[in-house]
């Protein structure tokens, strides 16, 4: 009888679902390699989108003549079409490597807030500039100053700094991993929209 009970006890223990592991320091903590990998992903995608939109390649390759030029070079007669994609990749890669290395050295609260600041800045600056240009086109009075890159840049820096400073520590930490899907989605929307001329011809 005792043995039967023991067997039943053993079976019931086997059938019982394992208790949900509470997030311990070991599971919740992301290692330095993780910080590097995550920051690399976020910063590479962000920088790639920005460099593509600004057309800032590290170099320009002319495949027809096998020529390499530093930075951005317009097409030249007799040299075929220039290629910028490799240059964007290299510049984004170098930037992301630098940013990710710095990220591993930062205290975590600083890292979370800096990430929020950079991502917001990347979103706000072009959005404010586009809004300024739109308003300048619509209003009847002189509003050329709204087209200024520096005005929208100043406002974007101020806005991003205010939000990242005022946001709670829990929120910036919670949202940190979400940048891994927000940035590629946002980047692809921006880059996809920039290709609209191909689809509207």
């Amino acid at each position, binding site marked *: 009888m005792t043995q039967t009970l023991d067997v039943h006890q053993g079976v019931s223990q086997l059938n019982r679902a394992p208790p949900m592991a509470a997030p311990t320091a070991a*599971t919740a903590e992301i290692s330095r390699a993780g910080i590097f*990998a*995550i920051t690399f*992903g976020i910063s*590479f995608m962000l920088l790639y989108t920005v460099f593509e939109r600004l057309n800032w390649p590290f170099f320009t390759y002319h495949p027809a003549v096998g020529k390499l030029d530093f930075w951005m070079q317009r097409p030249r007669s007799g040299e075929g079409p220039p290629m910028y994609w490799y240059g964007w990749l290299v510049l984004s890669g170098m930037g992301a490597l630098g940013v990710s290395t710095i990220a591993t050295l930062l205290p975590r609260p600083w890292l979370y807030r800096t990430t929020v600041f950079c991502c917001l800045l990347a979103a706000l600056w072009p959005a404010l500039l586009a809004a300024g240009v739109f308003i300048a086109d619509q209003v009847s009075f002189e509003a050329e100053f709204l087209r200024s890159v520096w005005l929208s840049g100043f406002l974007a820096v101020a806005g991003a700094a205010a939000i990242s400073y005022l946001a709670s520590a829990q929120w910036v930490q919670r949202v940190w991993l979400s940048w*891994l*899907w927000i940035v590629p989605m946002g980047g*692809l929307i921006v880059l996809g929209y920039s290709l609209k001329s191909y*689809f509207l*011809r």
Partner: protein
Amino acid sequence: MEAISDFVFDYISVRTFWRALLFVHFILAVSLLGLVTLQTVAVLMPARQAAGNFITRVRATPAASYVTPIVFLYVPTFLLGAWVYLKYRTYVRIPMEQFGHWWTVGTFEFKEHIVTMGVALLPAYWYFWRQPLTEEYAAIRKWLVVFLAISVWYAFLVGHVANDFRGVGA
């Protein structure tokens, strides 16, 4: 790269060389496509037991077992694609524009961007799929798998359309 191609051109024609390169890119892409699809099925529709039909057994495969082969296939497929892209820019895209195939050009441009995002996410993908897998990162793991699968499927389909315009067998 130019030194490699110059050496090879002593033995095979330029046309054959680029076609062979494109074909290897295609083979790698097909393998990658299979793996990302299987992993996506295992992640989105997991099954507890391997018993049953083929689909159930695929669903029951541990999704983590696909990670290393995917990383080791994604990178060379990307690099080979970047190499073949040289020929695309001069030999394929120019006639595409001349014939007014703007949708094909546009979708191929988008392919550049989506595969670049995929490569950028590979380190994070590898990190979150390391053992032991923690439950709190399950959502981000799932997202990374789905994004990589979308990027590979998109690149494959668009690449195939571009190949049909001017490539192997076109």
